[in-house]
């Protein structure tokens, strides 16, 4: 039996290489993410908020589910490769039990070998990709390391368990098939069955569900959790029926129209209609994963890009300086600036209310519906009479005391009520119209300020300081969004590549006939590119639509609808770039396999 196995390996080595490469990629990606998620020092040093590590755990679970799905595809492919050999063994007298244990051993050894190579590959990939991403995103990451013993163990156990489960499942499936079915396994044709009325009905329902989910997405804020579930169900079923039925409707229509009577259009259409029954589930999951990848990246990047705007919206001024050492002349387009005096006494900062009566103090307050913020100008009298209206001053007081919270503020009616023993000092508040245009000057001023007062930007108030603080926090989120996005996409595109290449044997015969009846090499290449282009294009287009509408769900998080597409453009370019590489690689490999 070992001889047969070895012979089969030799004759189908191309298929095995495709399988192996796919498995190695998935193990490498899983390891990469696990290395990041299990690296506590890295997570803690890059995230202010402890919730970030929860996001990483959620990310790893998602990645685990996708890996699980992927391994199912890979093992189904493995079973398909071996089925006819098992049939042959069975005919030669091997018992189901013998064959079953052989299958289990084969699955496990392929799995473990691929996982080990994948982890080694993961080391290299992790150090390469992280340094590239860090450079690309301009975020600072500390405590990043490529080799993590914990992740090696997690990846090994996770993959071995999955392969074991898959092996047992394959074994069970195998034991239910008879010898003849096994022998003929690779020669069965899956004829597309056409039930025009049913297809039309479900096709239209699919389209309606998909559009319905798009209509509901922007309304998520009012619909709540139940709405989210409804949207998810509508979108998943909509996608599935759209791909399985609407596309079938379209291929039927093309088949009957004269559109297909030119060049190899009928052939491409035939390929698509033949593939659909076999590909519909996979294309649906890829469409959804594509949307997840693009969505994760768009939100991550969008949020990061929105930070300056968020900071400007939260603070009434750009910066507050505790010293006259800072010269604000280097700032461009200053729209407002004012100097106020204070006296420090223990944990309390005293301000002179009369100064605010003369020159009102700006504060950011939410509008009545809570949807936006606007600046309110406060007098000293108003602040004294209205409890809780002194938060601008509280921020300033904490900055002056170099602490994140806990400072006490007292606004006195006039300078006479301020403590006589304290030194009268001054602060300067300044607002510029464009913070990012002044970023260099603001950084310079902050460093001058720090030299004199030893106060950290972490505790400072103003939109510039707020921006710097959140940049630190959300740099990690953006990094993870991009990392997850790329991980999802790399795996899903590999799945599609894998599936397409595994069907090459059937297609080879079709292309051989085409060549014999006068199709040129260039035409064959064009046909392959179009055929695979449609396969890759379907989930991509649905995924892009999903994200265009899906991002509207993030309007509350992104401070309004106008900001939701901030990260969409660059993410789309990145994702499409990667997807294109997979597509071109698949076309190239496919072309080579067809030609051989």
């Amino acid at each position, binding site marked *: 039996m070992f001889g047969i196995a070895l012979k089969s390996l030799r004759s189908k080595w191309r298929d095995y290489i495709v399988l192996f490469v796919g498995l190695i990629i998935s193990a490498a990606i899983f390891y990469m993410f696990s290395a990041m998620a299990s690296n506590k020092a890295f997570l803690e040093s890059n995230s202010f908020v402890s919730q970030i590590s929860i996001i990483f755990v959620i990310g790893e679970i998602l990645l685990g589910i996708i890996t699980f799905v992927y391994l199912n595809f890979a093992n189904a492919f493995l079973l398909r490769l071996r089925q006819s050999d098992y049939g042959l063994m069975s005919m030669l007298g091997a018992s189901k039990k013998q064959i079953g244990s052989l299958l289990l051993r084969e699955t496990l050894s392929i799995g473990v070998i691929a996982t080990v190579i994948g982890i080694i590959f993961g080391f290299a990939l992790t150090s390469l990709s992280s340094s590239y991403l860090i450079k690309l995103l301009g975020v600072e990451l500390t405590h990043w390391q490529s080799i993590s013993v914990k992740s090696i163990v997690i990846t090994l156990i996770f993959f071995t368990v999955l392969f074991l489960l898959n092996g047992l499942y394959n074994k069970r499936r195998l034991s239910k098939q008879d010898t003849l079915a096994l022998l003929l396994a690779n020669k069965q044709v899956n004829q597309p069955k056409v039930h025009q009325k049913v297809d039309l009905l479900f096709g239209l329902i699919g389209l309606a569900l998909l559009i319905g989910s798009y209509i509901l997405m922007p309304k998520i804020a009012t619909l709540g959790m139940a709405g989210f579930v409804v949207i998810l169900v509508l979108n998943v079923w909509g996608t599935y029926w759209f791909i399985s039925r609407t596309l079938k409707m379209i291929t039927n229509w093309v088949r009957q129209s004269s559109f297909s009577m030119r060049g190899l259009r*009928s052939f491409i259409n035939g390929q698509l209609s033949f593939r659909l029954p076999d590909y519909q589930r996979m294309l649906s999951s890829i469409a959804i994963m594509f949307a997840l990848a693009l969505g994760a990246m768009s939100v991550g990047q969008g949020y990061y890009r929105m930070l300056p705007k968020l900071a400007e919206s939260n603070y009434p001024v750009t910066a507050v300086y505790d010293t006259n050492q800072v010269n604000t002349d280097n700032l461009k387009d200053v729209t407002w600036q004012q100097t106020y005096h204070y006296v420090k006494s223990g944990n309390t900062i005293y301000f002179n209310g009369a100064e605010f009566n003369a020159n009102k103090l700006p504060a950011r307050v939410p509008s009545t519906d809570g949807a936006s913020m606007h600046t309110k100008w406060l007098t000293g009298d108003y602040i004294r009479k209205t409890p809780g209206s002194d938060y601008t001053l509280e921020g300033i007081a904490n900055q002056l005391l170099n602490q994140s919270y806990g400072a006490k503020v007292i606004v006195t009616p006039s300078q006479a009520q301020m403590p006589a023993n304290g030194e009268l000092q001054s602060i300067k508040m300044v607002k510029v119209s464009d913070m990012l245009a002044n970023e260099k000057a603001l950084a310079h001023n902050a460093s001058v300020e720090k030299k004199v007062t030893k106060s950290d930007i972490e505790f400072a108030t103003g939109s510039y300081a707020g921006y710097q603080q959140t940049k630190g926090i959300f740099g990690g989120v953006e990094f993870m969004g991009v990392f997850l996005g790329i991980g999802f996409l790399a795996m899903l595109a590999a799945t599609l590549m894998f599936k397409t290449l595994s069907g090459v044997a059937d297609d080879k015969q079709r292309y051989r006939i085409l060549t*014999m009846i006068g199709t040129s090499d260039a035409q064959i290449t064009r046909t392959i590119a179009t055929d695979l282009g449609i396969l890759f294009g379907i989930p991509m287009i649905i995924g892009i639509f999903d994200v265009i509408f899906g991002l509207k769900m993030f309007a509350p998080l992104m401070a309004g609808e106008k900001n939701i597409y901030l990260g969409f453009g660059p993410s789309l370019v990145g994702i499409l770039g990667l997807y294109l590489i997979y597509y071109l690689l698949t076309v190239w490999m496919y072309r080579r396999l067809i030609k051989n």
Partner: protein
Amino acid sequence: MTESLLIANQLNKSYLSAAGVQQDVLHDLSFSVDKGEFVAIMGPSGSGKSTLLNILSTLMAPTSGTVTINGKDIWQLSDKEVSKFRGQDMGFIFQNYNLIDSLTVQENISLPLTLQKAGAKKIKQAVKKVAQMLHIEEYLNKYPSELSGGQQQRVGAARALVHNPALIFGDEPTGALDSENAREMMNYLTTINANEGISIIMVTHDAFSASFASRILFLTDGQITKTINRDNQPREVFYQQVLSELGNFN
């Protein structure tokens, strides 16, 4: 005097075996086929008849020698010209039909014309015409796997005919058919040869099928060892002659 359509001149084909030994399949083989002629090539297994057909039909390159069709040396043509030649000037009927399983009968037959970018109307008319001639109109919307062997072979013939080629190659076109279907197929080929003036070169090991041809070349060890002409004999008489030749031959 009739004009030559195909001239094969001193064709040689040799392979290097796995053990590194050179094996000659065709040896200095020369012959010609006239326009409108129906030629059968017979010979035992391994005599090189399939190799010869593959070389004549541009599917395989000879080691040396030339093949001229309509005055053009087909092995001097560019890839594009070869494709054009296959698509426009020749039709091919295979023993195993070679239909594309993902296309309906109609689409399979249309392929040579859609490749030439013919108009939809012209394609429909041409498909209808050959489908009527070969009695396969009722299967046009079926897939090859839904048809019997004989029906599939007729579809293969329809695809070979639909673009009015000058020359049809047949590689054991009746090899997979029962005697009734084989007779029917050979009658079709004879009809299109006589009515449309299409030349036919067919490889077969079957004396019955060969007896429909006007000339038979016998191939042994890569060389033509005997040629017989039907002249004006009835087919049944010619059949007997082929059988007796085969008897001598073996």
